[in-house]
């Protein structure tokens, strides 16, 4: 079942000749219990998309269905069943953490507020801050309070915008673990972040958005396989400089470079990777390890966003 279904969504800003397309025929869906990453450079349209989904911005055309409800006609019902956490916003009220969360329990018309508040505070480890004014919290704690707020109504779809930005390593790990737990309980999550490690660790599927258009979507592996990159073989060897010099003489080697205690040998295809392996097996150098360096999601992201996707045989959907 799709918890979120977006079809041909369009939004323009401005008038006449100065019209700018913020979203251009955007379509994607999120299944129940799926973590979906939305990636794109600043100004790509991610915020516009989330604003429309939350009913804060009117779309020009297209269809948006959230938790099976139509955004145009059932916005209140949708709002009861989704929640949002924005990493970059703060909270600065003179309410204490406990009062702030209680206020949101009222806004969401929730029963058992004490139990819900205690559970949410426990989940993000802020129980000891219950009586502190939100105004006096550090930005990291404010983020945690906002995440606790987003958990109060046990949303079916949770929108997380940069949930760990600015947080220390320990709490970031805890929040990522919490996101996984929520997924296990069936919560669907739309995650926007610039942290590629977070995306690789958490997301089942991702979509890349640029200039208001979804330019690629699929699993992390699908997206990685969409880019045509040179293959890099990392060789740990006893005589780095001599090895680099020797291997460079092979006509199929594009380059070889020494990186600290390894040599990176670049070739253009898997066929040449095999040739390198043959060469290594016959060479007189003492080889300790050989590893094929896969392209990172970050690399794929940059290449796809810059329009350098070439590998059309991949499983990903390049749209």
């Amino acid at each position, binding site marked *: 079942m799709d918890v979120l279904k977006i079809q041909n969504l369009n939004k323009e*800003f401005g008038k006449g000749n100065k019209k700018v397309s913020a979203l251009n025929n955007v379509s994607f869906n999120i299944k129940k219990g799926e973590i979906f990453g939305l990636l794109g450079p600043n100004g790509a349209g991610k*915020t*516009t998309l*989330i*604003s429309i989904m*939350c*009913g*804060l*911005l*009117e779309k020009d055309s297209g269809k948006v269905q959230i938790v099976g409800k139509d955004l145009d006609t059932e916005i*209140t019902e949708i*709002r*009861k069943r*989704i*929640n*949002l956490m*924005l990493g*970059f*916003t*703060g*909270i*600065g*009220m*003179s*309410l204490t953490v406990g*009062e702030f969360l*209680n*206020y*949101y329990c*009222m*806004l*969401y*018309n929730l029963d058992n507020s004490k139990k819900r508040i205690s559970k949410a505070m426990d989940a993000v480890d802020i129980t000891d801050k219950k009586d502190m*004014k*939100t*105004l006096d919290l550090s930005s990291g704690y404010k983020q945690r309070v*906002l995440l606790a*707020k987003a958990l109060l109504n046990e949303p079916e779809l949770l929108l997380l*915008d940069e949930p760990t930005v600015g947080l220390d390593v320990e709490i970031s790990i805890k929040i990522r673990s919490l996101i996984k737990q929520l997924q296990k309980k069936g919560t669907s999550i739309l995650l926007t972040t610039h942290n590629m490690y977070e995306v690789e660790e958490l997301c089942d599927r991702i979509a890349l958005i640029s200039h208001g258009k979804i330019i690629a979507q699929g699993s992390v592996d699908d997206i990685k396989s969409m880019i045509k990159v040179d293959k890099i073989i990392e060789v740990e060897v006893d005589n780095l400089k001599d090895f680099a010099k020797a291997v460079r003489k092979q006509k199929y080697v594009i380059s070889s470079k020494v990186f600290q205690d390894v040599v990176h040998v670049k070739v253009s295809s898997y066929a040449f990777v095999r040739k390198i392996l043959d060469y290594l097996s016959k060479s007189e150098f003492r080889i300790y390890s050989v590893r094929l360096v896969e392209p990172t999601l970050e690399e794929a992201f940059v290449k796809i966003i810059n329009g350098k996707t070439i590998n059309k045989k991949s499983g990903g959907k390049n749209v």
Partner: protein
Amino acid sequence: MFKRVYSQVYKNFLVMIRNYFRLFDVTIWPIILLFSITLFVSFVKGQSEIVAMVILGVTGWRAVYHMQIDITTSYMEEYWSHSLNHFLISPIKLYEYIIGNMVTGLIKFLIVLTMYLTIGWFVFSFQLVNIPLVILGLVCLMIFGVIIGLISLGIIVIFKENAYTAAYIIPDLLVLLSGVYYPIAIFPEAVQNIVKFIPAVYGFNILKSTIGLATVDYPMLIMTTLGWFVFSLLFLAFCYNYAKRKGMLARMT
């Protein structure tokens, strides 16, 4: 619905007891306003009816003020605390928000009213005559306060803090034009022709009529109140939809 309406009362009172400015708004400032005018009137040997008119006028002014100010301030409170977007995506409906802030305004006004009646009685031997009529006058002025609150909210939804000052200035200007302590006959005729379309004129006249200092044009009271009320609802709806269309409701970042 009740919880969402109550959420506004809950938040406003917590903010009020923690924020001196908000607390003084229902304690110190109303008392200063009352004394600054009543003491002046006593000093110039004003008749007891004039003192009564001043007390009723100040009371009516506070009725307008408290009913409108929370509708706008509560929204700005969310904006200033950077949680407006979180608030707006919650399931609270606009009318629940408005009712919640009307209730807050009413409670605050009742606190001020109690203070005024107590001070008026002890210091100036002031007593209400024709209580039902006084209540009617205050209700009319409270409705006018809500109308002004809705119009100010509409402006604030689009212009945020740039328009918040207007939320303070517009009601005071309208009240002054409504003949708060004086008949509107003191204005030039051109101004009179305009201000007779302000419902507060008739609300203040009801209060003044309880001490025999004015007569009330009830048909005009009803027509102007209805007209302004319908206009304020349409204006707020227009501003909200415009802001939603243009992405001005709340910035996500």
